[in-house]
């Protein structure tokens, strides 16, 4: 699949143990590189295909050398992808803002100045995340329909907020716990009010965590498909809906599909690469650092 060749392994009998160990780690490094390239390859193939002409995209054997073209991207924009991207952007950004506004104070009340029974509350939040969306879909659909809110971006904002809220509460809690209590108490002794301690002590420590939380909520909202496909259509359709509609109305235009898929995946790819050090913490709801 790849052009990477494993380096020639010399007979190691003559090597000293230290050199042999270095040699061993070099081999494992190559193995890791090969694994990485295999894993990322479908994505590379998607991006390559998006710059091909259709006849090169649907060729067998696969076309490796071609003159890159932006035709497919132009076509995707001609098919009006912009409203869908804007809907996704609105649903993701506003739900992320709402999540952060709701989750941060809640996390504070579950960590630095805990309410009684804070563990129960914490587990209540996580249990809502475990409930499958299918089980709540019908009543949500009926309610939204009766309110005349079907195919409305704000409906998606609210639903994505509830989808990401538990994650954000757990994540923010784990970041808030890193604020040293002594510093906080010292501030209180010095007469710092709540607002001052938030601004001067808590925010500087927590803001990277806040950014990571927001990024992960953004990723999940941007990628969400199940609720979007059932509750939106032409007005509030999000980027995933565009992709699906694309395939059924266009038949098979592989290069164009790859261009559209690359475009809609790009924001999350960038966000994820930027936040990769914090990714694991968010995905495990703050359980793993």
């Amino acid at each position: 699949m790849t052009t990477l060749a494993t380096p020639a392994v010399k007979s190691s009998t003559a090597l000293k143990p230290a050199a042999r160990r270095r040699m061993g780690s070099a081999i494992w490094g190559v193995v890791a590189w090969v694994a990485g390239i295999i894993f990322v390859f479908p994505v590379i193939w998607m991006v390559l295909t998006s710059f091909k002409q259709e006849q090169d995209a649907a060729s067998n054997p696969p076309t490796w050398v071609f003159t890159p073209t932006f035709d497919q991207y132009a076509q995707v924009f001609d098919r009006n992808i912009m409203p869908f991207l804007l809907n996704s952007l609105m649903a993701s950004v506003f739900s992320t803002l709402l999540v952060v506004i709701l989750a941060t104070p809640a996390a504070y009340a579950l960590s630095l100045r805990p309410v009684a029974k804070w563990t129960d509350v914490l587990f209540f939040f996580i249990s809502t995340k475990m409930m499958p969306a299918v089980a709540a879909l019908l009543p949500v659909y009926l309610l939204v329909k009766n309110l005349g809110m079907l195919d409305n971006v704000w409906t998606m904002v609210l639903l994505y907020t509830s989808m990401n809220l538990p994650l954000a509460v757990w994540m923010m809690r784990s970041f808030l716990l890193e604020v040293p209590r002594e510093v906080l108490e010292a501030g209180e002794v010095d007469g710092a009010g709540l607002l001052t301690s938030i601004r001067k002590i808590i925010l500087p420590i927590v803001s990277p965590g806040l950014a990571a939380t927001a990024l992960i909520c953004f990723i999940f909202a941007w990628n969400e498909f199940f609720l979007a496909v059932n509750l939106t259509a032409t007005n509030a359709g999000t980027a995933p809906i565009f992709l699906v509609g694309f395939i059924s109305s266009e038949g098979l235009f592989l290069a164009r599909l790859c261009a559209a898929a690359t475009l809609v995946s790009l924001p999350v790819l960038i966000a994820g690469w930027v936040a990769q050090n914090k990714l694991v913490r968010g995905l495990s709801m703050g359980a793993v650092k």
Partner: protein
Amino acid sequence: MTDVITRADPKPEAPVVSPKGGAKDRWVRRAPLLPALIFAIVVTQVPFLVTIYLSTLDWNALRPGDRPFVFLDNYVTVLTDTRLQSALLNTVLLTAGAVIFSMILGLALAILLDRKFFGRGVVRTMLITPFLVMPIAAALLWKHALYNPAYGLINGIFGGSTDWVSSYPKAAVIATLVWQWTPFMMLILLAGLQSQSEDILEAARVDGAGAWKIFTHMTLPHMRQYLELGALLGSIYLVNTFDAVFTITQGGPGTATTNLPYEIYLTTFRKFEYGEASAAGVIVVILTIIVATFALRVISSLFRMEESR
């Protein structure tokens, strides 16, 4: 949980820390929590209660007129329906297949990444990339660009003209899910590996323990919690798999890959059997609660570990 209905206005000023304060202090502490808690209850718990109610009605949206109360009839229909039984079996197979394979691959990759080598950051970035691709885009990519019998990349490289999706529908869905979820497992397991104490490992090496012995006697027991956490979180996410089934196989051929979410989707929006769909939804929640109980136990054990640190 019910005593939070009455809501106090958030107070900007908090009094001095005193865990056993009076009623006022308790409300001041609760105030920042309430908006989020009330929001979560309204948006997630109320619909579920409505689902339970709907599940007792004989309601097909295509049929006008009464929606008579039928108590448990829908549950009987759903539980004796072979479609649902096969959907249940498919859900278990798809979830277990995806979780097990992505755990094994994830562990192997985490062990590779736990070493120092040239370009480790780049390799890690490459490895997490599949997880970041929009799931629906990933499903379309695998279906059309990789699995396609005529011009898909798999047949293009290895030859042959296998129609992967119709010949091996379950494997096709599972492979796509494994590709997307291996990075998730890898990240959790890598965090586990890196939380091992280097001193203890060094001490074992000095005492003459071999690499294999260290791995089976020290690393694996240490990793147990992380493996459990990965498996359970993965199951919770993957049991809801909808995108891949919807895109790659539409549940077919026949019902070969119809899992519970897809079956309920069909019952709701293709057959409009609202009562039956709700009953199936309630059953899914009960199953999830069973899995989730284990998940919570694992998470809370990690949680205690963190508290005691």
